[in-house]
């Protein structure tokens, strides 16, 4: 190819698309690469919930900033990605978990958010189909959903309109360096020269950086989901399991929602349902225990859906870090940046990553505090060469 670009962004999921947009808008010449179709890996498999509720205490300021940015994008792109402020319910089915929910509600309210505890009548008013045996629920009315596919498409289109170039089906095979400087990215079609490379490659990130002697603690984790055929409007918002005192979610993790096209999307991973390690290059079928857990949980919470036809399942590998937070910032040689480690919650955080990386490259003030994501927190594993 032999083309020249100042910045190459590797990975066109929601994080890469947002980052390319932020950089192009700051006037940089940007080339965005993806190994396949844009958003076809983690982003395309995401349930794309934009929620501050029961999410991350440490990151609450950043998450609030991110939700505002998403709402601004919705205005700016005039509904192109179907932003819906549908709210989020976290159901509680163990009495011990009520105090945990109250803890989250208190700290979110202190930050100016409007989470609250609901009794059963209030739950039924918001989600009438949720008639399963739960005790109570927490409720966060400002949480939203977006269409994950159209979000990537919209940000990618905006980045291209701002001058970025997108190359699909162009896997980055190697990041090239000269001395202590990044010089480009090698793809099967040739080399793209660059003085700055941003790797937003999700579960592929660590593998791309490993040959450079940079060891990032990012491992792939199997994420799975099931979808029914389209139904009439049944579920209004996001329904999940409330976190429990024991850490994590009592008895597991659940997310259930209805897509705008009507399909019910649902998944439940019960404690002990941790899946075997795998590679994002070879996507297997959904695990059978996962299918049982997800189907029985859906039927328990929404008995009216038990005869609905399942249409589809899917599996992707998300990128997991030891502390469940993204790794964002410079690593290794001069000019190399990373924004990866979605932990299954990359959609909401995409604008945060874009802001941190773009302001770092531009040398401008960052609108959010980047410190929770500092790659150096895993030093000395991230060896500065």
């Amino acid at each position, binding site marked *: 190819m032999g083309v020249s670009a100042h910045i190459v962004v590797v990975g066109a999921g929601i994080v890469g698309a947002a980052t390319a947009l932020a950089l192009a808008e700051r006037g940089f010449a940007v080339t965005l690469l993806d190994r396949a*179709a844009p958003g076809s890996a983690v982003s395309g498999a995401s349930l794309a919930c934009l929620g501050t509720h029961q999410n991350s205490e440490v990151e609450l300021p950043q998450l609030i900033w991110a939700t505002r940015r998403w709402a601004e994008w919705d205005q700016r792109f005039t509904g192109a990605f179907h932003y819906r402020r549908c709210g989020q319910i976290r159901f509680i089915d163990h009495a011990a978990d009520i105090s945990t929910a109250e803890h989250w509600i208190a700290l979110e309210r202190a930050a100016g958010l409007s989470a609250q505890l609901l009794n059963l009548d209030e739950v039924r008013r918001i989600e009438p189909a949720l008639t399963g045996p739960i005790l109570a629920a927490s409720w966060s009315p400002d949480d939203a959903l977006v269409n994950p596919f159209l979000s990537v498409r919209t940000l990618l289109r905006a980045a291209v309109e701002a001058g970025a170039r997108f190359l*699909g089906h162009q896997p980055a095979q190697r990041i090239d360096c000269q001395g202590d400087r990044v010089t480009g990215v090698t793809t099967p079609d040739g080399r793209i020269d660059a003085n700055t490379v941003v790797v937003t490659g999700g579960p592929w990130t660590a593998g791309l950086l490993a040959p450079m002697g940079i060891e990032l603690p990012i491992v792939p984790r199997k994420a799975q989901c099931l979808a029914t055929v389209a139904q009439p409007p049944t579920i209004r918002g996001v329904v999940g399991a409330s976190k429990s005192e024991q850490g994590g979610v009592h008895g597991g993790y659940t997310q259930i929602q209805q897509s705008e096209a009507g399909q019910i999307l649902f998944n439940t991973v019960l404690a002990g349902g941790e899946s075997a390690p795998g590679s994002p290059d070879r996507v297997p079928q959904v695990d059978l225990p996962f299918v049982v857990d997800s189907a029985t949980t859906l039927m328990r919470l929404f008995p009216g859906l038990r005869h609905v036809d399942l249409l589809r399942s899917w599996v992707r590998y998300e990128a997991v870090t030891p502390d469940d937070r993204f790794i964002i910032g410079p690593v290794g040689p001069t000019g190399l940046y990373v924004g990866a480690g979605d932990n299954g919650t990359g959609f909401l955080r995409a604008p945060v990553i874009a802001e941190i990386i773009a302001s770092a490259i531009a040398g401008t003030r960052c609108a959010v505090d980047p410190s929770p994501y500092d790659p150096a927190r895993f030093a000395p594993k991230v060896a500065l060469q």
Partner: protein
Amino acid sequence: MTTVSAERITCDVCVVGGGPAGLSAALAARRAGASVELLDLFERPGGQYFMQPAHPPTGAAARQVAEGRALIEHVLASGVLIRSGVEVFGAYDEPLILARRGDAALVVKPRAVVLATGAHDRPAPFPGWTLPGVMTPGAAQRLVKLHGTRPGSRVVLAGCGPFLLVVAAQLRAAGCDVVRVVETSPSPLALAAALARFPRHWPEAARIMLAVVPLLPRFRFGRIVTRAAGETHVTGAIIARIGRDGRVLTEGAEELDGIDALLVGYGFRPSVELATMLGCALAHDWDAGGAYVVADRVSGATSVPGIFAAGEITGIAGARPALAAGECAGIAAAGFAGKATPSPDGGRLKQAMDFALALRRAFRPPYGTLGRLPQDDTLLCRCEEVRASEVRAALDEGAGDAHGVKMWTRAGMGPCQGRICGFGISVYAGCAGSADPAVFGANAARLPARPVPVDVLAAAVGMATREEGAQIIPTG
């Protein structure tokens, strides 16, 4: 409390599909000493080729039905258990087969599996193809063979391949007025040349030819249906010549009126869903139907140990190769299950395949032409109502492949999961986005292979993952 019953079966060999390949596989495996379960989707076994109507027909059709009936009786007499009306919706490589019959869950844990899941029609979109009265030749054949129902009284039959001749003969026998038979291949010479080399097939060819002789003046070679006309039902069709460069020559196109059925199909697509879910290696060749299962030419062994494939899913070839391949795969599967078996004899299969491949070469659909048929407002994906212009816009913005198009337009996201629309989107993208249709990819099959109620799914998978236990699962 409602309950879903769940049954778990173990056997040496589970055959999926009750057409020629599946029936002969089941028979061969049983004769080799294996316990065999055959799961078939339809009310009666036989598949499309050996379809068994409730009331046996007379005349030309009787011969084929009788041959199928004889085979089915052999299979039953051998001790194979044929389970009809069973929808297989999942497969895992333990191996494990997840199925249902109505609202009852069925789990099969065999030692070996023979996939003989066949194929289905391969339509290509063109303006007007969604009008009532437009259907595939295979669907029309099913109406005639199974129910004695005519798809229409004045019918145009169009597409590519010798299957059109067979359907033309059957429609005529059923009393349809076949107004035109529109074949994209330039002339009958290629068919004649293919036949010339295989005298063994002359009697069968002669029977079919004889039946369509009165229709010969109505045959149009080197032509294609470019549009179906009609308000609420198809009433007409435009038939145009295909130029040397594959473009449609609008000049001199025939505008046919006064019809009530238009049957269009461009070959068949292998039903590779279960094989895909099992992780069997696939290859791609449009002339073989698209994605097909890579299988050993004799044993039918796929890339996954214990999983064998026979018939159309290994590449479209017709019933004779399927019968031979089924026998080989049945023997090999019984061998895998621990039965002492002779090596399958691939001689008959090779002979049958040679002829099938010659026919395949003689009838190659004009993929480039098909890709040019849709207009901007033509629906490419019927389930999600996605138009050609939307697919083109997604390609222009970098969607890149079938998965990208699906995400950005929802094409292929509906109940058919790309089985019906995948071919059309792919050949369209081959023109609109200059993508190579073979690498454009397809909507990969995932659980469930067919829609299944959540409670039946839970009962089946619950039964599959549980140790030996109760047969009834409460679900609500």
